[in-house]
């Protein structure tokens, strides 16, 4: 295979794996922001919490990596309901700024708690054998873990797409995102819908956090360090849109990877340049509503 084709495939593969991580972690944020207009900057903290639960499950209880991911997602999703009902609910009518302040405060508390419980030293997880090593695709080897990310990402996309487009609940969510008042007047219980969406979104964030450990390592500041990235994906993709989050994750993932490979000097430039370029032309993101 010609050299540039190999490079292109490498970039696409690595970018795709990265994009899957971004998608899984950010989709919850996009839907909750689109559905309830609630700016939840503690989203990164939920991802971090998921990561730490996975660490505890695998290291202390000896549970396998993949089952731990699932358990962590469920646990964090369930706990998030407590936050939603107890705390967030009070601020649905508040200004964006107040929501920002509250959720940033929660994020700080989460970081401090994680530091207290786990210490500030970054953690890693033991992976099962089949996730270490390579997958041989003929002309190149690809890391198994990244292949796993891609496959998992596709599976989740399929599940989410089906849930959104083909089920009753999905239809209700879409209706509520489109026009909340109308949805309520047709008898859709938007509040309960939101709790469900929030739980699923936070669970997915936790899953993303668990997956991120192998990619970036996990330390308490994960909660805010990568938050900017998630916000970028959500803004570029468009609030409340599954498709938008996916496209944005792909664009950001591939551009970032490609930029690093081809023009390392530019560093993080690409991600922000792409963000500015997209938002100047399409302020609501790819698939957002004006």
């Amino acid at each position: 295979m010609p050299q540039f084709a190999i490079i292109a495939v490498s970039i696409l593969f690595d970018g795709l794996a990265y994009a899957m991580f971004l998608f899984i972690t950010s989709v919850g944020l996009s839907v909750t922001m689109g559905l309830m207009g609630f700016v939840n900057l503690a989203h990164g903290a939920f991802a971090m919490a998921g990561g730490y639960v996975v660490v505890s499950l695998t290291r202390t209880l000896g549970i396998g990596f993949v089952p731990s991911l699932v358990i962590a997602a469920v646990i964090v999703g369930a706990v998030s309901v407590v936050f939603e009902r107890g705390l967030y609910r009070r601020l649905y009518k508040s200004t964006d700024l107040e929501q920002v302040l509250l959720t940033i405060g929660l994020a700080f508390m989460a970081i401090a708690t994680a530091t207290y419980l786990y210490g500030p030293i970054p953690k890693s997880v033991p992976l099962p054998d089949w996730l270490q090593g390579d997958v041989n695709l003929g002309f190149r080897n690809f890391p198994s873990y990244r292949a796993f990310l891609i496959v998992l990402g596709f599976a989740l996309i399929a599940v989410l797409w089906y849930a959104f487009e083909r089920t009753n609940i999905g239809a209700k969510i879409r209706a509520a995102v489109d026009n909340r008042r109308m949805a309520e007047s047709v008898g859709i219980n938007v509040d309960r819908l939101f709790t469900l969406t929030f739980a699923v979104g936070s669970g997915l964030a936790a899953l993303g956090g668990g997956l991120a450990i192998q990619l970036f390592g996990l330390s308490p500041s994960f909660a805010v360090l990568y938050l900017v990235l998630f916000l970028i994906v959500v803004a570029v993709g468009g609030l409340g849109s599954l498709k938008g989050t996916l496209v944005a994750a792909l664009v950001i993932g591939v551009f970032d990877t490609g930029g690093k490979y081809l023009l390392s000097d530019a560093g993080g430039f690409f991600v922000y340049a792409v963000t500015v370029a997209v938002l100047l032309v399409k302020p609501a993101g790819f698939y957002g509503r004006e």
Partner: protein
Amino acid sequence: MRKFGWLGIAALAFAVGGTAQAETVKIGVVLPFSGANADLGHQIDKAFDLYIKLHAKDIAPHKIEIIKRDEGPPTGAQAKTVATELITNDKVQLLTGFVFSPSAIALAPVVTQAKVPMVIANAGTAWITNLSPYIARLSFSMWHHAYPMGAFAFSKVGCKTAAMAYTDFPPGKDSTEAFKTGFEKAGGKVTEAIPMGSPVQVPDFTPFFQRVKDAKPDCMYVFIPSGAHATGVMKAYGELGMRKAGVKLIGPMDLIPDNKLQDMGDAAIGTVVMGNYAVDLDNAENKALNKAWHEAYGKDSYPDFMSAAGWDTMHAIFDTIKKLNGKVTDGQQVIDAMKGWTAKGPRGQVTIDAGTRDIVQNEYAMEVIRKADGKLGVKVLGTTPSVKDECKVLKLGRCGS
């Protein structure tokens, strides 16, 4: 008779203990205790605490009073405020700690004006010691590890060509510049230098490493800040199968921090680094340090190069206090007493250079191996003794001022 006896004993006591009036030396410790870099601060803090606990009697009857403050983020501003107040409010006689170079840099004019010695336990930018005559450093400069690595890589590791990948901030630039100088002087050729993003977030290293892998140099010299980045590097290196592809991994010891080595797995085996410390270093002081460390902090906790530097820092401070008999109010005296200080430590023989006030120490070329007990460790391939900071020797750039 009794009365005179009493007086006699008092006179005797006076004669014997007269000169040793017990002083309390106030030391300000400035380390990051919060935020993303808190683990670095803790590694040094633990070493400080341990040394003080074990050696308090060495400076009897004098005592140490430690006042700890948070260095904050690597912007320099908080460190400067905090340390200035340690000097003006808490009236410390000495400042130590300092993980980040910007903190030390920001503080240099202050310690010069206040005439308070600053003993650096970590900050590694080469020209820091030039900024004030009151600065002494016990840790390292990037050049200590990187410059000898250049020559060693060429002659002993078989690197004829090398690519350099580094985190895009001053220590990364310093380290790669130092490596390049040493490597090319020995006859090697550096193929490219790839910046890998900012030190704050651990990036996905895969695209950078993939690029190096495709270019097929003999070796890849990587500099990253010690900590989470190191694990990420090793993961990416392993996942891409770079060793099998023939690209050896080399770098300063920041690549294999002792408290993360065990997590790195097989991918790390064969990595060659140059540094001033490893847990496995075979000398009496290091064995003693490890034993005391495990006793105090548990068997899963390890000292690392920062702890070793912290240990030697406190050792130097204690020796100076003893030398000056507890009278450490004259900053110039303290610094002068530190110049030329030399002792055996966990890192081997360490000396404070009288001219530059920077550290002179051994550099060990080490290879990661799997030990007999199954754990990962290092084997010393060679020792370069008494290495000075080459940047100041060559007077390159700011090092020459």
